[in-house]
């Protein structure tokens, strides 16, 4: 199934109307924030007024800490088979070393939730898709397991399930023969948590290296921090406009 066609003109018209209505309700105060992050009703579809993103503060990320990886594995029931080459991994810690001076940095890499995702470009069945709110997902009902997306992803973010599974969690269906990757905890986002399991775990550890939020909301913490200090994309040269940004890299 393809993404529903977005009627830009109609949406802009509706937004303009909503803005005008906001102004009449209380002059000078925009009610634009209503309907943003977390406030969506269960019967309402996601909209592109929100774009979910994550900021990774590399300087706050602790060497040797894998709380984010463990929290992700636990949240989605990602149990390994003792085969690290092929076991599913949605978020992983990388350590990079500067050849000059030998300084090392450790930080997590996950699906970057690109605005222009190569995985979606190459998918022959439309199983790889981007939700209106910027979350890149695999519809496993449509995935045929060809793994083109795994080859296309510059971030090595996707995993293929090789083995039959039997202990899946109710909120995280996954099975043999399909490709999967970070979902930005879409089940948590949809119920209004406003945070991913990895970001919550990082906060519990006291590092706060992962900030999840709405990139379209100028008042969200992620937007404020990006506005103040900027952020970098891994492989920015590819022009993918990633939803995951790094500071201190």
């Amino acid at each position, binding site marked *: *199934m393809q*993404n*529903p066609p977005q009627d830009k003109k109609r949406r802009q018209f509706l937004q303009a109307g909503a803005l005008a209505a906001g102004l009449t309700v209380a002059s000078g105060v925009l009610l634009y924030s209503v309907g943003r992050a977390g406030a*969506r009703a*269960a*019967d*309402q*579809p*996601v909209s592109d007024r929100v774009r979910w993103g994550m900021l990774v503060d590399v300087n706050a990320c602790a060497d040797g800490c*894998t709380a984010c*990886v*463990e*929290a992700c*594995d*636990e*949240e989605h*029931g990602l*149990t*390994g088979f*003792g085969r*690290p080459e092929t*076991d599913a991994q949605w978020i992983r810690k990388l350590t990079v070393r500067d050849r000059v001076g030998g300084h090392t940095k450790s930080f997590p890499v996950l699906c970057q939730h690109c605005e222009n995702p190569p995985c979606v470009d190459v998918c022959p069945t439309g199983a790889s*898709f981007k*939700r*209106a*709110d910027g979350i890149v*997902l695999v*519809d*496993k*009902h449509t995935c045929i397991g060809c793994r083109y997306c795994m080859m296309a992803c510059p971030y090595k973010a996707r995993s293929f399930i090789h083995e*039959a*599974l*039997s202990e*899946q*969690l*109710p*909120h*995280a*269906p*996954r*099975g*043999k023969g*399909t490709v999967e990757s970070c979902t930005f*905890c*879409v*089940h*948590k986002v*949809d*119920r209004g*948590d406003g*945070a991913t*399991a990895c970001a*919550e775990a990082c*906060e*519990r550890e006291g590092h706060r290296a992962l900030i999840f939020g709405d990139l379209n909301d100028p008042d969200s913490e992620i937007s404020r921090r990006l506005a103040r200090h900027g952020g970098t994309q891994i492989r920015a040269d590819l022009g993918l406009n990633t939803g995951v940004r790094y500071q201190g890299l």
Partner: protein
Amino acid sequence: MTTAVSTADDHRMPDLPAAKGERCVEPTEVMRRRHAEFILHQRDETVHRGIRTQKHRFVNCIDCHVQRNAAGVWPRHTDDDHFCSVCHLYTSVAIDCFQCHADRPHEAYPGGGKSAHRSDRSRLGMSDLHLERLR
């Protein structure tokens, strides 16, 4: 065509395990014919548009319909006393839902099989093998 709910002395029809709730979200006759339609529709709405209404939610079907069997054990989809299997074996219609989806309700999981909230600590406790992989 509608069929009556089976009774213990009617061996021609499958004997469905009792659900937890009092009433289904649709009349039995409707569900019997159209349950696949409902969950297929909800599937696309949920995956692609993020719509998560409760009425035809697959997880809710499982939470209500799959209950402990006579031996006090949670049946798996491969068992012939699992709610879905009872009819699907009878009609020889193979389903692949449970290759990915949980075939047991939340309460069958240690820790409730729930997704974590901000304040939660470790819920499941991962195996040694699993922790080894992370290192």
